[in-house]
């Protein structure tokens, strides 16, 4: 049994969207998944004026400072655009085999690309990213299996190509 997952909604973000991924996450990781109270203003501290984006590495540091992380995996989900200094953007960032990860729904939303909003697609992409970053928290590397949620994705289209579940090899690595 894997250690439990706590989801922290980092406002601004759709809490309905977060609620919708709780059950599928339980199914994938076969463990407890709970949702914390939405946290306001945490992301504000990570805003970078020069990039007009939010620094995901600082956001992880901020969450480590604010949330007790013993015996738990904490994933922050936000609607703002995240980056790491060397890259133009990230969908998410995780501590490999560590307690905290963050994901952004900003670039998972088709509206950002000038397309009509697609709530179902947004749900799928958010779930896949959450499974992916939590997989890193549990110690998984990127997977060569194109269907596996741990397959690397650098564009929204990449995310759409893979599944939301873990492949047999990744499941075996986690003892599932």
């Amino acid at each position, binding site marked *: 049994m894997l250690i439990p997952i706590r989801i922290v909604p980092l406002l601004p973000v759709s809490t309905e969207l977060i609620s919708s991924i709780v059950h599928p996450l339980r199914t994938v990781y076969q463990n407890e998944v709970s949702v914390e109270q939405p946290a306001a203003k945490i992301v504000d501290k990570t805003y970078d004026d020069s*990039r007009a984006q939010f620094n995901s*590495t600082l956001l992880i540091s901020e969450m480590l400072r604010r949330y007790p992380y013993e015996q738990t995996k904490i994933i922050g989900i936000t609607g703002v655009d995240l*980056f*790491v*200094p*060397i*890259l*133009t*953007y*990230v969908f998410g*960032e*995780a501590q*490999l085999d560590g307690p905290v990860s963050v994901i952004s729904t900003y670039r998972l939303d088709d509206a950002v690309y000038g397309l009509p909003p697609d709530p179902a697609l947004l749900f799928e992409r958010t779930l896949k990213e959450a499974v992916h970053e939590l997989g*890193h928290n549990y110690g998984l*590397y*990127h*997977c*060569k299996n194109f269907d596996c949620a741990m*397959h*690397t994705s*650098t*564009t929204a289209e*990449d995310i759409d190509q893979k599944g939301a579940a873990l492949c047999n090899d990744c499941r075996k690595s986690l003892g599932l």
Partner: protein
Amino acid sequence: MTEIKKSSLLIVDDEPIVRESLTKWFKQDGFRVESAEHANAALKLMEKGPWDVVILDIKMPGMSGLDLLKRLREIDRGAQVIMATAFASVESAVQALKDGAFDYVTKPIDPDHLSHLVSNAIQQKRLEDENSILREHITEISGVNEIVGESPQIKRVIDLSLTVAKTDTTVMIRGESGTGKELIARTIHANSARRYFPIITVNCGAVAETLLESELFGHERGAFTGAQYRRKGKFEMADGGTIFLDEIGTVSPKMQIELLRVIETKQFTRVGGNEVLSSDFRIICATNRNLETAIKEGSFREDLYYRLNVFSVLIPPLRERRMDIPQLAQFFVKKYSMIMNRPVSEISGEAMDMLVRYDWPGNVRELENVIERAMVLSQPPSIRATDLPFQNVTKLDQPKDDTLAAMEKLHVESILESSKWNITRAAEILDIDRVTLYNKIAKYGLKKP
């Protein structure tokens, strides 16, 4: 992805946050990642290499990324270096690429671009490594193992071939049919600096004169009926390598002029085309004709002869190096034993004696054919005299001279012996009537034993 997971990556950047975030990014991809904050640390890590990919910041305190790139290339030419900078400048990008960088990116990097770039760099590294291994392999296997023989004559041929191989000199290989002229040409190519490029063989005697021009120079689409596509010619295909023109003595006077022009200029035009093409090739040619006689007769151009006959290698006929016959015969037995999967491994003493005494007008090619035939007929494990096709011929004396009459006498005598002096049968084989055969028997003074 499995291959990429085993790859190694070195990140050189003075900003800790860049080193940390890239290290994390690529560790999640399964890379072995190390980072260095300045040039000295990078050089120390390079010594511990090899590294597949190096991501190198251009602007660093102390030694710049461009200077470090040159040092890194001195230590490990195989590592693919991706230059990164926050301050894009065309000059520095061009300089980096000139100095051997794989590519150049500006910070911040698009993650999708970075992912593809590193994948491509690793693929490039894999291909270069593979190419290097294959080149070594080619060098290893391109010896002279295929040339069999210990006689002074064949050793002289090998020595000459290896000597001329190192140069770019045009070579003319001369020798009777079946002596192995193409094998010598391939040996010269395989031991030359051109060995990593193709050797293109053109049998000038086997291609109709009207098609030889298209064969050698290529043609454009629609150049003639049936030319549905543009086709590269042999000279174009031999770019960087060697073109082997076999049976050069059969080339028509018109093509001889064309060849002379191409050999002198290394330029040509495809049939039906206007574009003048260049190709860097070496010429090796071969003939069994007496070209000096052909020049006197006016059928071969003297100027082309001197262009081609810069360095001549004469392969002696097999009858002039009989001591090589046993070794060659055993070589072919081994070869066909493997091909036919027949457990034949030896040649009886009597059969070997016949092989050595036979004159081999078809030279090594004929010997190979005889052994191949005998392998089919033989009872394993050995080839016996009865498996050979020329029991009677070997007993014949050599002709005293090379005149047609002497050859005819020998041939008629041979056929009479093989047909046990059955005049009707012998006349049928010789395709002459019985009266003519009687006349020839009388003319040459042949007597029934």
